[in-house]
């Protein structure tokens, strides 16, 4: 019979203010197996933990129930307490009296008290059946996979590589650089985006510890912390980069022209191309969907012209597998597809209604207009420019209620750029609220107002074409009147959304996404770069909208986490994994079918029953390194031969029974 000790925590007044903790402890003393019970102000405090350790010795306790806060918070704390007290750390069961009782039922103290007693009874019933568990050790592969080559991925890769670890960086576009490479200037310092990001791009390409795969995609990630396997598809570029010198002959002479995605469709590129002049690698790829050699079966201009014979129309995708110990997901963001939902702004029918990112390209010296601000429709310099903020942000009607965090500032920057480049231009900004929380942001916003930008608080209800003008109708909610502006160009501050394909990626890696499609961090405050999957970390806007300094900071944070993990030689495994009782297993392997980690395999055993001749038969076997302890197999197993340590059938039934008294 186990000897259970029950420790009821007041958590100051958090629990003690609603529940009668001494009475709970007193009631707990009558539960089967409980030989000691007490209450204390803060059980998690040093004296509280010492009290447990002392009681273990004094009362020869071998199972501990702590009735306090959520086990998600302090389970590990108390496991360590048990360990220090000489007990197996898994001889702990917690009753959640705070989050699940006192905090939510302050209005019904009597019923809450009864509930608290039930919760402790449940914990004691489970505690009585706890078994000692022992972790295994698994080796750690000292290589890191970074998915996404934007500024977040670049920063994470460089930090990890600089620490001396190997990095594999995979980018799906032909170049690294991401969205930051498209930006003209960065707020509020107005330094040139390319000038500060391209050196980092080059550093990645040159770093001896970084293996860079561009135009490649991660197709599958399997395995577990310290021991992942990733399958990577290197898409066919049709250009042999080992031969190519990046001379540029091909793309200048290519007869095809295609809307240029890098320039947000505002310019054109060839079918064989580099996305922008400072691309890394600075070698082209062929866009087979638009190349005449592929679509029409004849052309071959680039192949004829290439001085080194690097063009290879026969090139195939290559698929290969790498092994890594950690994964950093840095897949960035997309922009809100406003054309589909904003009918009031013309569903994208008016060429002079452009997005903020389009404006970035328009104003960039390497952009389609060579840095001159010209309207796409007729190439004229706009005299009146209207900026509309919160397009796809903070707009529940369009399905996005969060703030994208960067639009206020980039719009201010755009306003500044118009006023700087076009003398006497008129600039109007429609906004809901202005959010300028960063260092130097508020000052920059004031400066733009001083420069002449007119800020109008209110939403725009309609934009329509009238002659060569765009009429912008809206409300000025501060003055309480309707506003109508005849503009030459309208710039929409489209919000930040989850990147294309991020949902599929999340499923492939096994990390959750939040309601908006961004990857879910393990804790919003305390574990912002970790995910719920051990060994997988987040960097940048794939987690939530953020500006460049925050992105870079998070990337470095993720890199620090990767280093902390990969500098270990081996890891302790979670001992709460499945186990098979061979005597009951019929070898049907229903469990194998439901295991998401491929942790179950058939194995042939020799069964020796008392008084029976030995017999060979197949049973299921759990790989404890792969098993993550979800327990799906335990329900698939009809015979109950497979059980989950720490959450056994017997324990769970005891919990049900204890709650149903």
């Amino acid at each position: 019979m186990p000897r259970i000790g029950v420790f009821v925590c007041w958590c100051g007044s958090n629990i003690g203010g609603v529940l009668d903790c001494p009475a709970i402890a007193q009631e707990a003393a009558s539960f089967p197996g409980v030989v000691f019970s007490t209450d204390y102000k803060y059980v998690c405090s040093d004296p509280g933990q010492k009290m447990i350790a002392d009681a273990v010795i004094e009362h020869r306790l071998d199972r501990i129930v702590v009735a306090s806060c959520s086990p998600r918070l302090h389970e590990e704390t108390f496991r360590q307490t048990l360990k220090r007290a000489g007990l197996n750390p898994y001889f702990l069961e917690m009753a959640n009296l705070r989050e699940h009782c006192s905090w939510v039922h302050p209005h019904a103290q009597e019923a809450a008290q009864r509930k608290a007693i039930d919760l402790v009874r449940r914990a004691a019933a489970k505690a009585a059946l706890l078994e000692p568990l022992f972790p295994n050790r698994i080796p750690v592969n000292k290589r890191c996979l970074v998915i996404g080559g934007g500024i977040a991925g670049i920063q994470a890769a460089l930090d990890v590589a600089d620490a001396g670890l190997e990095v594999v960086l995979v980018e799906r576009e032909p170049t690294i650089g991401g969205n930051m490479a498209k930006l003209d200037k960065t707020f509020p310092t107005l330094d040139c985006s390319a000038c500060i990001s391209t050196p980092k791009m080059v550093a990645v390409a040159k770093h001896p510890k970084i293996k860079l795969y561009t135009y490649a995609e991660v197709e599958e990630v399997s395995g577990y912390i310290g021991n992942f396997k990733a399958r990577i598809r290197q898409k066919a570029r049709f250009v042999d980069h080992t031969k190519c010198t990046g001379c540029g002959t091909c793309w200048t002479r290519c007869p095809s022209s295609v809307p240029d995605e890098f320039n947000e469709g505002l310019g054109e590129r060839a079918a064989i191309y580099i996305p922008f002049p400072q691309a890394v690698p600075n070698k082209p790829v062929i866009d087979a969907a638009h190349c005449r050699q592929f679509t029409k079966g004849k052309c071959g201009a680039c192949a004829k012209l290439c001085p080194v014979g690097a063009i290879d129309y026969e090139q195939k995708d290559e698929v290969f597998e790498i092994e890594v110990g950690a994964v950093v997901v840095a897949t960035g963001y997309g922009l809100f597809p406003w054309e589909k939902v904003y009918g009031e702004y013309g569903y994208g029918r008016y060429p002079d209604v452009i997005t903020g990112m389009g404006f970035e390209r328009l104003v960039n010296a390497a952009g389609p207009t060579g840095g001159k601000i010209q309207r796409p429709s007729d190439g004229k310099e706009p005299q009146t420019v209207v900026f509309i903020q919160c397009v796809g942000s903070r707009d529940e009607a369009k399905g996005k209620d969060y703030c994208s965090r960067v639009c206020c500032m980039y719009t201010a920057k755009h306003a500044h750029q118009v006023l700087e480049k076009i003398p006497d231009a008129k600039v109007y900004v429609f906004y809901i609220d202005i959010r300028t929380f960063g260092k130097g942001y508020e000052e920059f916003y004031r400066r733009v107002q001083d420069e002449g930008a007119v800020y109008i608080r209110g939403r725009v209800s309609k934009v329509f074409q009238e002659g060569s003008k765009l009429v912008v109708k809206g409300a000025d909610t501060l003055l309480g009147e309707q506003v109508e502006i005849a503009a030459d160009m309208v710039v929409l501050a489209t919000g930040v959304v989850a990147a294309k394909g991020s949902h599929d990626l999340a499923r492939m890696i096994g990390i959750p996404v939040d309601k908006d499609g961004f990857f879910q961090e393990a804790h919003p405050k305390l574990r912002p770069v970790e995910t719920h999957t051990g060994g997988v970390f987040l960097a940048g806007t794939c987690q939530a909208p953020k500006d460049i300094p925050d992105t870079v900071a998070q990337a470095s944070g993720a890199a620090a986490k990767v280093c902390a993990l990969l500098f270990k030689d081996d890891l302790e495994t979670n001992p709460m994994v499945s186990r098979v009782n061979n005597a009951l297993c019929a070898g049907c392997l229903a469990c194998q079918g439901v295991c998401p980690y491929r942790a179950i395999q058939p194995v042939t055993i020799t069964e020796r029953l008392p008084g029976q001749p030995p017999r060979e038969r197949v049973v299921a076997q759990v790989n404890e390194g792969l098993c993550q302890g979800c327990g799906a197999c335990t329900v698939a197993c009809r015979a109950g031969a497979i059980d989950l340590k720490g959450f056994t059938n017997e324990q769970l039934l005891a919990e049900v029974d204890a709650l149903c008294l």
Partner: protein
Amino acid sequence: MESKLLKKDKLPSFLERLMESSLLVAPVREDGLLIYRPVSSVSEIELNPGRSVLPPKDWFFQQTEAICRYNTAGGQLLLEELVTEKNAVLYGLHPCDIRSLAVLDAVFLAEPADRYYAARRKNTALIGMSCTAGRPECFCTAFGISPVGGEGADIHLTDIGAAYLVEVLTPKGKELAAKYQEFSEEKVAGLEEVKKARKEAIAAQCSVGVDQGVLPAKMAGVFDHPYWEELSRRCLGCGICTYVCPTCHCFDITDVNSGSEGERLRCWDSCLFRDYTLHTSGHNPRHELYQRLRNRFFHKIKYNYDRYGIEGCVGCGRCVALCPVNIDIREVIATVRGLSE
């Protein structure tokens, strides 16, 4: 022995009167199944029952019986024994089932007597009922049972057309007869002949004979015969034969807990189940199905006789009729006889 007549039309009112002072357990047909259970109205009763699916043993030795309650709250053990003291009358027992109670008595009433069984037995009066026809599976005569005999009942009824012949066989029966004498009439002559003819007619249908006292001895010699393995090939290992058997009496004890209180239950068990003789070590002396099936037949024909002087089978034919794979104890008896000759 006292004999009387009970007009058929008076039987319901007699039973109704019985119900006033006792619980009446009687054959009832539910969805075509004949079972014995306490009734609340005479109209529920099948007055001239055939063979029930479940034997009436369930009344004395219940399939699941709470034998005590306990409470350990506060570190103290409180026990409450649960013995039924209720008076009951069990109506409509056929001779084979009456005999089965003698078999169970040998087990449960031998010292130290089982008090749960003993209490029910003591407090229950038995009203027997002669058979009017045999069924294809009947073979009670093989064990010397008369299909019209009431030995073991307190009062025994035999259908003789418009009335029942009432035989009052025990002091308990006498008490009942005296208490309800307004229902009975004096017996007419010639009824013994009716009974005898009925007995012979049914006996002629019973195809199997058992040489009492001889067959048990013969069985010892066939314990290791391959026949048992062959027979067991089609056996499913279910518990039908044991659960419908009027003399099977194996049970298992289970505690059903609910926090610090609970009940101790006595539940029927079956020697055909794989965990029947399973030891804590994992060893099972009857690991193979043939060993378990053999044990059942040895118990019915030999062990029970050796131990108590009475066979463990009463020829009711329930197991023969209900075995899903037609394992027929009559064939087993015949085969064993053949094997040992």
